[in-house]
């Protein structure tokens, strides 16, 4: 394999990893921008979506129906989560809501262990898609190709939604100024619920893609992606949706090339590197790559 081909192969790896990160991050950023809530349970929505898809499929539903229904279940779980756990806490300290989301993680993950069992389960329902496409000396797995295309499509749709629809503009308005948006009559609850729902749909979809790549699901599968998405969100500028996308890709590329370019003894330090990067970004450019407003200290 030539070094250019090597580079391109790693590039493709990074692109598909980055796509999934981007997809998870958008949902996280959407909720954060509106509520200033870092929802660590977002990753568990991926888990719930994946399990739902698998169970519905095993119950005999056609693949695509199972996928649609599973993703919808993930969305609905997001709404329930908001209603039961986060709405009662609205307006309380950021730290409290952050901790609440951790508690929700404990709740959902242990619940999943109880209901689904702790064991890893194979997730092969997309295996009928032939594994690889050969492009010259490059091999592109079809799941990767689908991931990238699907993510890009969703990103474009989301951008249009946010830009053009009243609900999308309302979300940006609420993110911009919560008080003023209430004063102009934006129905806050509806906007928040919508943000949770859409974000959770994306999480469900990301769960599907993530599980299809890994070929397996397990109850604790959500934590690593959500932590990564969270880093991606900070890199991109928390709350900014285009930033979330960029952050996702930056992280995907950083991770892949960190492993690709360094000797094996250092590969293990990948996550440390990711977080050093995060801390540096927080210090140097707390608003992230695309974050517009600097954090102003109000006196």
């Amino acid at each position: 394999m030539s070094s250019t081909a090597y580079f391109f192969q790693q590039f493709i790896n990074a692109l598909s990893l980055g796509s999934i990160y981007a997809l998870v991050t958008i949902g996280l950023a959407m909720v954060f921008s509106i509520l200033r809530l870092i929802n660590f349970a977002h990753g568990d929505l991926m888990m719930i979506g994946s399990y739902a898809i698998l169970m519905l499929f095993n119950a005999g539903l056609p693949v695509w129906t199972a996928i649609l229904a599973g993703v919808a279940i993930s969305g609905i779980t997001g709404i329930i989560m908001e209603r039961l756990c986060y709405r009662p806490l609205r307006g309380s300290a950021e730290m409290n809501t952050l901790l609440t989301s951790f508690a929700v993680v404990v709740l959902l993950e242990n619940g999943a262990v109880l209901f689904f069992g702790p064991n890893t389960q194979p997730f092969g329902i997309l295996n009928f898609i032939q594994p690889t496409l050969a492009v010259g000396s490059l091999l592109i797995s079809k799941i990767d190709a689908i991931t990238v295309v699907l993510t890009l499509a969703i990103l474009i749709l989301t951008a249009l939604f946010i830009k053009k629809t009243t609900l999308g503009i309302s979300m940006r308005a609420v993110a911009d100024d919560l008080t003023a948006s209430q004063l102009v009559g934006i129905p806050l609850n509806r906007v928040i619920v919508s943000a949770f729902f859409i974000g959770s749909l994306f999480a469900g979809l990301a769960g599907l893609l993530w599980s299809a790549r890994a070929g397996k699901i397990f109850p604790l599968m959500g934590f690593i992606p959500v932590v990564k998405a969270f880093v991606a969100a900070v890199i991109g500028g928390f709350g900014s949706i285009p930033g979330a996308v960029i952050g996702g890709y930056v992280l995907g590329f950083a991770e892949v090339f960190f492993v690709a370019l360094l000797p094996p003894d250092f590969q293990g330090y990948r996550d440390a590197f990711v977080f050093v990067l995060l801390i540096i970004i927080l210090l140097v450019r707390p608003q992230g790559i695309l974050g517009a407003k600097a954090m102003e200290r109000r006196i």
Partner: protein
Amino acid sequence: MQKKISIAILAIATVFLLAFSGPVGADTVKIGVIENLTGSMASLDQPSLNGVKLALKEINDAGGVLGKKVEIIVRDGKSDPATLATVVEEILGKGVSALTGLSDTTMVLAAAPAAQRMGVSFVSSGATSPSLPDEVGDCLFLEPFGDNVQAAAAAEYAYNDLGAKSVWVLYDKAMDYTYLLQRYFCDRFGGLGGAIISKATYQTGDTDFRAQITSLKSKKTLPDILFISSGPDEIGTIVKQVRDMGIKIPIVGGDGYDTPLLAKVAGPAAATDIYFTTHVALDSKGTKAFVENYNKMFGHPPENGFAALGYDAFKLIVNAVKNANSADPKAVKTALAATQGFKGVTGTINYPKGIRVPQKSVTIIKVDGGKFIFEKEVMPSEIPAP
């Protein structure tokens, strides 16, 4: 306020005391089972517990031991060393004859010292570090063979039978088992004259191994085999991604492969040309009954090799109780140490004098089109020191 709090504390303390002072029956043989039923280790330890439960049922159906029923006291260690260290004390307080469970070295090291202090033997059902018994003391027994044995077997099989002269190694840095396995493998493979081209690592929980695989692909000369040292949860994904990236080189590994997940996650097309060492061929005659009974009891075949290990470890203890003709922990320990020719599902266990790692032959399984096929039994000619 203060009053409410003090009342609450009193109430909690009372309940606390009552909760653990139930009557203890003396007409059963009690064996403690510690497993991580929740948390990161649960996928190894739950099957192990199922194995124990199956063994228990069989033993009690056959009349128990020493004329008494056998009773298990199960505690969840939550994959957390502090919890393990606590529950082991709790179980020891209930007068058990011996303990079993746990599939990870670190977890055993958190739980077993308390048993050692009390002189109660602990048979590790799944941890395979050969130095474990020396680290804990004379109460700790391994049910499976040590990693050095299976790694040496894999190396000899790869070098002699597969004719491999060079290897690329990928291993999980976060686990004791995966680290030791590849180290012993490299020791023996190098000793035979094989070349280690390079090593790459990942961490438990990773789901993306393409960066590592792509760097393998970029090597000027590809190795004859890949030695991938992985636990049961990652191996399917790794195989899938290796094959997806167009690498058809044979893959060799250890008993972590012994799970249906390997074939199911990777798919039958990818799960081909894979060879691994393990304790038992689940499709062989000797194990057929075990698999069937397991299926009957739990509604599905054993999730992985740990089910059989848990089953054997428990039977091993009961066997020792029978041999000792006593449920006294000291006697059971002596009997365990003297175990000879105990036939389990996972092979025949002999503990040579002073050595509490069994000398067992290693089974080599070949995976072809997702099917596990018994290849051969190997007793390595040379075993790296623990």
